[in-house]
């Protein structure tokens, strides 16, 4: 699932006049490294308050995605071609690979499809609805059409202008998640040594 995030974050770099999905897709493949902060709010039915969390993320064209939640507690997600790792303080890292859990890993193929601008694979999984909102703003609504995605999500909506700014996820169970991105940077275009170590583990 984390791969969706990846998928959508790759829309972070678009030109002001880009108003077609094809152009968006062409753009993201040219950005080699992208850093941003995020703020997330989950609204879960039956719970008094929404759950808020925040942190930062890093997307490297070659290596993958590094998602670092800092508040209210530390949670790290790493997603590469070969594996997904979830790290929580004081716990064994949870490693998912194509071999040990292909179900969860399936989304990686979506990801690589995007890397190759493979719109066909996107369309195999979602009904796509792309809207140009004018002044460089755009909206893409993804409606899952295959299981298990369609049992989990009602829709995934992406909003942005120059960068992707918001993701809204509506679950089938009436829960909602809203993620806001800010402070997006495309420089430096190479990874620092510390960042390289994230992916080397």
């Amino acid at each position, binding site marked *: *699932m*984390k791969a*969706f*995030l990846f998928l959508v974050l790759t829309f972070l770099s678009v030109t002001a006049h880009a108003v077609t999905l094809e152009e968006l897709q062409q753009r993201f493949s040219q950005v080699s490294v992208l850093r941003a902060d995020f703020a*997330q709010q*989950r609204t*879960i*039915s*039956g*719970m*008094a*308050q929404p*759950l808020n*969390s925040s942190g930062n993320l890093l997307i490297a064209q070659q290596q993958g995605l590094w998602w670092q*939640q800092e508040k*209210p*507690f530390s*949670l790290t*997600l790493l997603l590469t071609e070969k594996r997904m790792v*979830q790290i*929580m*303080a*004081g*716990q064994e890292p949870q490693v998912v690979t*194509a*071999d*040990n*859990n*292909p*179900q*969860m890993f*399936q989304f990686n193929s979506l990801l690589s499809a995007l890397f190759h601008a493979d719109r066909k694979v996107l369309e195999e999984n979602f009904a796509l609805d792309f809207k140009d909102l004018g002044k460089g703003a755009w909206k893409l609504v993804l409606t899952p059409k*295959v*299981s*298990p995605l369609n049992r*989990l*999500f009602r829709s995934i909506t992406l909003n942005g202008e120059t960068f992707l700014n918001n*993701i809204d*996820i509506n*679950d*089938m*169970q*009436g*829960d909602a*998640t809203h*993620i806001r991105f800010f402070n997006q940077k495309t420089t430096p275009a190479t990874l620092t040594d510390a960042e390289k170590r994230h992916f080397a583990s």
Partner: protein
Amino acid sequence: MHPDLHRKLAQSWLLIIALMVAALFWLLPRSQINSSVLALLPQQQTADVPQAFSDGFTQRLDRQLMWLVSPPPGAGVQPANDWLTQLQTLPELNRIAGPMDAQRQQEWGAFFFKHRNALLDDATRQRLKSGAEAQSQWILGQVYSAFSGVSGKELANDPLLLVRASQMAQQQNSAGMTLDQGWLMARDKQGRSWYLLHGELKASSYDITSAKHTVAVLSAAKDAFEARWPGAKVLGRGTIFYSNYASQQAEHDLSTIGAASVLGVFALILLIFRSVLPLLLSLLSVAIGALSGTVFTLWIFGEIHVMTLVLSTSIVGISADYTLYFLTERRVHGEMNSPQESLKKLFPALSVALLTTVAAYLMLLIAPFPGLQQLAVFAAAGLSAACITVMCWYPYLSKRLPVGPAPGLAIIMRWLLAWRSRKAVRFGLPLLILVLVVAGISRLKINDDIADLQSLPADLQQQEQQIAALTGQTNDQKWLLVYGDSTEQTLQRLEALRPKLAQAKEKGVIDGFRALSLPSQAQQQRDLSLLRQRTPQIIAQLQQAGVTVANPDLSAQTVDVPQWLNSVVSEGWRLLWLTLPDGRSATLIPVSGVHDSAAMAALAASTPGAGWIDRKTEFSSLFSQYRVYLTYLLALAVAVIAAIYLWRFRLPHGLVCLVPTLLSLGMGVAALGFSGHNLNLFSLLALILVLGIGINYTLFFTNPRGTPTTSMFAIFMAVVTTLLTFGMLVFSSTQAISSFGIVLSAGILTAFLLSPLTLPAKKRGRKK
């Protein structure tokens, strides 16, 4: 022998034959032709696993079939559904399983939900053991993750997310396969999807007739399917494909090799004797041999194996030898001697030849192969009957035989003369053969691997490799078996073994294993107390983090084996569980990628109620054990023969007589080296026959009452018939049989070539 006495003997033999015919009619309805390939293999000697379990599982697994179907790109799952429907219409198959429909998926989730407190996965258990903190952190991680899909409803029903954890653990077991619209699906490197189906045969895979039919039906279904869906592919796996291939080979051998060798022998007799009588007499002795062989085999074993019949065609050649020896004698000396005198003259050689051959065949009884044991009994009984027939009846029946000189007398005389007068032949030929023997043996490899005894056809092998690549499951049938007096004891033992298996995987002893994950009652109780102990703290910690959940239901939701077996969650696992009527139970743990079979055997030995089953390695070590065993036996036999020769012929001739025997054994082995075959148990079995049959030639020559030319001619005939029968085995497509044939042909040919060496010096080359 007095003529009256001989007549009485002949009459009693007729009576015995009549009795045997009666016995055959009595036995036939009470016995069966065994066509199970399994029956040819040694009985499994797994001392550490009760036979009932290994038999039960083996029979069950041998009936399994699986298919992987790949629709043409873009066709979706429709072709897979079509193949499923097609299989379901076949009356030969049972329990065809394809996709899991929505309802069963629902039931699956419902079962896990209903028994969530009893079906903890290892990871959750570990977290709970290390403290409440670990579990509450894990729950928070799931709840906060935008993409895990934890809903309010899920949290309300299962605040500890136990179902989610156990389902994640289940997915970890999926061996690289994903779900696609309820189908288990794997993708290959080219990105094609392969959908998995399972099924079961109604009959045993090893039943030759029904297996042949079923394989034909399946192959027709596959052709029809591929015609309907151009570009679609179907891969199949199952014991039936292998056993059917093996039995088809055997059938093919029986019809072609058997027929060719029998026809060859009779054509030769007609050609040489230019008279129908010898042919009829040979037929009679062969028929009586076959009758007696069949009766004794059925009487002792209650059945006869198809493969025994294949191999026994090779005995035709030997049983014809006795007739030929006698008839040659009569043809050459018919005018001078009465038939009784001829018999008297030949009796020593005939009887000793029979005894040595029968002794050689009876040595095969030592090998633990039911098929070979039957062959040994068949041969011993058959050859004795054929020989007795010659002795009792042929002095009467051969009265009308046209008399004449031995055919090819001139050539034989020249050949024998050369042995006497030319050192080049007398020393050169044995030396030349010795050089060949050394050269051949230097190239020889020893290989006891059972897999090399039969090469599989390329298409089966290719399918096998593809399936292994797609599913990660190889077909090399290695598993651990855990058993106990009750279901509970079995499950507890399985739990004790699991950490050891995980360790073995870590160490690289094995690549992976599949063990069913139903906790024992004791474990379920322990898990429940652990849950009850930790839950209040977990709920409090979640509360602190702003996640408010209701108190979970902590009632005992225990699952026992029958419940589990009757639910949808055991689908795909049921094969691995067996409960006998008396309550004793066992579970199978298939292991893949075994790098150290001995370490696994040790692991099983260190756990009560566990056994390591690795048929292939077991058979291979059994083969090697018996190969060594037979080597000693052969050496002993040679030593006994040497002693007898030395005692009879004194030095130096006794030693000279030993040369053909030793070189024929050497040449049999060397021929394997030249033909690129490996030395294995079957080569040794063949060598024993080389010894037993080859020695006859020496005996015919050293018979003090015999005539060298007559002996030479009889031996020549005997060799040609033997080569026609055993030599035909070389063309068998079953490697074990063809290497058997190579050893025999090369060995016997050498024994024949060198046999004149054994002529006593004064007899060599002398006219009759």
